[in-house]
C-alpha cells in the first residue's frame, strides 16, 4: 500500500509547530508512518496524472481529513502553549492547497507545493505576530497564545536566509525548503527536480551550512 500524501503533510505541520527545533536541529519531517494512510489515497495518487478534476479534489479532501486527524492527535500530545495550533494550521494549509488549481503531476509535486504553502503560512503568521496584528491569515490564528516571539523571529530569519540563498542558487534553496517545510525525502526531491540523489545530498549539505550560519547570527 502506497503512503498517502496526508502523512508527510501532516507530519510537517507538526514539525512546523516546533520549527526552531526542526531547523536548528536539522531534522526533516517526522516519520511518515505514524498515522495509517487512508486506503485509497495512495492508489489515487499513484495514477494522479490520470485523475480528472473531481478525483483530484477527492484526494485533496482526503489530505485534509489526514490533516485534521493528526491535528487532533497533536493537540493531545503537544505542549499547550504552541503559538500555532495544528488545527488552525491544518485549516489554513487546506484552504490554500485548494486554491492551487494544479495540475499536480504526482505525489512529490503535491508535497512540494504543500511545502511552499507551509512556508508562506508560517511566515505570514510570524510577520503578523511580530507586527502585533491579526490580519493576513485566513482562519483562527488569532487564537494564539502569547510567548513565542523568539520563534517568530527565527522564522523570519529563516525566511530571509532562504530568500538570500535562492538568489545565490535557486535549487539549493528549493531542496532545503522541500526538506524542512515539505518533509520530502531526498529521492523524492531528486525525482522532482530531475537530478541525481548525490546532487540533492550535496545541495542539502551546502544549504544547511548556509542556513545554520545565517541563523547563528
Amino acid at each position, binding site marked *: 500500500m502506497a503512503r498517502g500524501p496526508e502523512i508527510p503533510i501532516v507530519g510537517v505541520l507538526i514539525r512546523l509547530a516546533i520549527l526552531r527545533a526542526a531547523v536548528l536541529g536539522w531534522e526533516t519531517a517526522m516519520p511518515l508512518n505514524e498515522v495509517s494512510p487512508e486506503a485509497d489515497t495512495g492508489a489515487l495518487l499513484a495514477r494522479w496524472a490520470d485523475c480528472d478534476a473531481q478525483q483530484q479534489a477527492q484526494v485533496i479532501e482526503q489530505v485534509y481529513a489526514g490533516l485534521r486527524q493528526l491535528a487532533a492527535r497533536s493537540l493531545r500530545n503537544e505542549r499547550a502553549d504552541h503559538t500555532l495550533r495544528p488545527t488552525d494550521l491544518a485549516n489554513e494549509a487546506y484552504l490554500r492547497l485548494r486554491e492551487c488549481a494544479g495540475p499536480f503531476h504526482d505525489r512529490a509535486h503535491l508535497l512540494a507545493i504543500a511545502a511552499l504553502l507551509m512556508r508562506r503560512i508560517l511566515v505570514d503568521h510570524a510577520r503578523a505576530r511580530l507586527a502585533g496584528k491579526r490580519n493576513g491569515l485566513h482562519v483562527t490564528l488569532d487564537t494564539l497564545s502569547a510567548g513565542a516571539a523568539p520563534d517568530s523571529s527565527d522564522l523570519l530569519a529563516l525566511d530571509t536566509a532562504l530568500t538570500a540563498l535562492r538568489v*545565490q*542558487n535557486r535549487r*539549493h534553496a528549493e531542496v532545503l525548503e522541500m526538506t524542512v517545510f515539505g518533509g520530502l525525502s531526498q529521492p523524492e526531491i531528486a525525482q522532482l527536480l530531475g537530478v541525481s540523489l548525490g546532487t540533492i545530498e550535496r545541495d542539502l*549539505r*551546502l544549504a*544547511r*551550512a548556509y542556513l545554520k*550560519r545565517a541563523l*547563528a547570527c
Partner: protein
Amino acid sequence: MLSSARWAQVEALFHAVLALEDDAARAALLAACEDPEVRAETLSLLQADADD
C-alpha cells in the same frame, strides 16, 4: 552577495574540501583558492557545517 559564478566556485570548493579526510590536505586545497572572497565564504560555510 556573491555572483553566481563565484557561488558556483564556493559550491565546488565546499564539496571538494569535504571529500578530503586529511586536515592538511583540506587546508592546502583552501589555500590554493586564489579568490579571497570565495575562500572566505567557503571556509565560513565549512565551519557552519562542522559546527554540530
